[in-house]
């Protein structure tokens, strides 16, 4: 059965989604990732969706689920590389993927994972000290 490969980089897991994922493949990914996080004790998961041209509500939900399950296993998830057209469509669809951290690319994604271990803060904090 086809599966999306999960790469291990030290304490992190890296997944690159390059195919038009059908529902079963998405569910398999969800299962595989949670298994792998548990098995390897990974502290972070990076999901690269820069080649994904379609993210519908099912895939969006899958990504949110993965992030939630990873968090229960004490791992952070960052989704990187969302294409503009996909972002615009998701917003129009009404999905904002709460609980899913995002970054522009793999590099910034890794930075985020490494600096925010255990932090649940989303977005930017307003620095309102006398500005």
């Amino acid at each position, binding site marked *: 059965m086809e599966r999306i490969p999960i790469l291990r980089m030290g304490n992190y897991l890296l997944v690159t989604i390059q195919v038009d994922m059908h529902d079963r493949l998405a569910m398999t990914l969800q299962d595989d990732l949670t298994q792998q996080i548990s098995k390897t004790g990974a502290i972070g998961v990076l999901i690269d969706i820069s080649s994904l041209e379609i993210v519908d509500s099912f895939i969006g939900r899958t990504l949110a689920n993965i992030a939630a399950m990873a968090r229960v296993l004490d791992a952070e998830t960052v989704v990187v590389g969302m294409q503009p057209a996909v972002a*615009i469509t998701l917003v129009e669809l009404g999905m904002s993927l709460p609980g899913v951290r995002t970054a522009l690319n793999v590099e910034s994604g890794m930075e985020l994972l490494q600096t925010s271990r255990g932090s649940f803060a989303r977005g930017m904090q307003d620095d309102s000290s006398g500005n």
Partner: protein
Amino acid sequence: MSKIAEVLQKHQGPLLDEWMKRLLEGSRRTDLISDKELKAQATELLGSITTSARSGKVSEVNGPEWSATREMLHEIAASRAKQGFTSSETATFVLSMKQPTFSAVRSEFAKDTDAQYQEIWAATTLLDKLALLTTDEFLAAKEQMISRQQEELLELSTPVVKLWDGILALPMIGTLDSARTQVVMESLLQAIVETNSKVAIIDITGVPTVDTLVAQHLIKTITAARLMGADCIISGVRPQIAQTIVHLGINLTDVITKAKLSDAFALALAKSGRAVVKVSEPAARMPGREA
């Protein structure tokens, strides 16, 4: 069955001459089209109408028999629109064919007043329909021109500026409408990807009013940017706009806003781990300042 086609065929020469005479006498836009070109168009159109009319169907111009003529009128109308003619000048081109056609009909059916009436009626309804068609094509062409110009204007008026590595600014000027905000959203998001910018500052100093729809669009843009991994700051919020936003009950609690662009920039720098530091000696003299 209408005999218009025969009439047009038989009296082609004099009809064309009289038509040209009327065209040249009327509101003649020699600045926009030459006599030679006008005559060529008229000849071609007359030929096409004659051919189409041979089918006998002269009361309905939307069928396949008239497609060649429709195509020709589409071309004529489109070029007139581009050249700057008015819609009535364009319609007159077709309508001025009436008088010459009636003359041709009258001379053809000199002894038969019934036939004259029939054919003149057929001719006038036909030319009316063709003229109306031409006007529609003219309007469609004009609309296309306008929307293309709007697009160009849109692109010009929403430049995305790179303030620093990883920091973009989008100065918005003028009223924001649905179409414009869409274009803005798309170009900003594209720029974010291309320049790898984590922060985008949307400055609305130059925007006179913000209504619910515009605010919704801005919020959508910000949400989309966040999904991609970038954050947005709205700057240049004037007191009136702040009031409007509160009055309309627009929820901006998830959005960082700053009154001044400079504050937004300072915040963006801080967020990207940068600071502006004063050095003891100015680096170089500005050109033009002599000691």
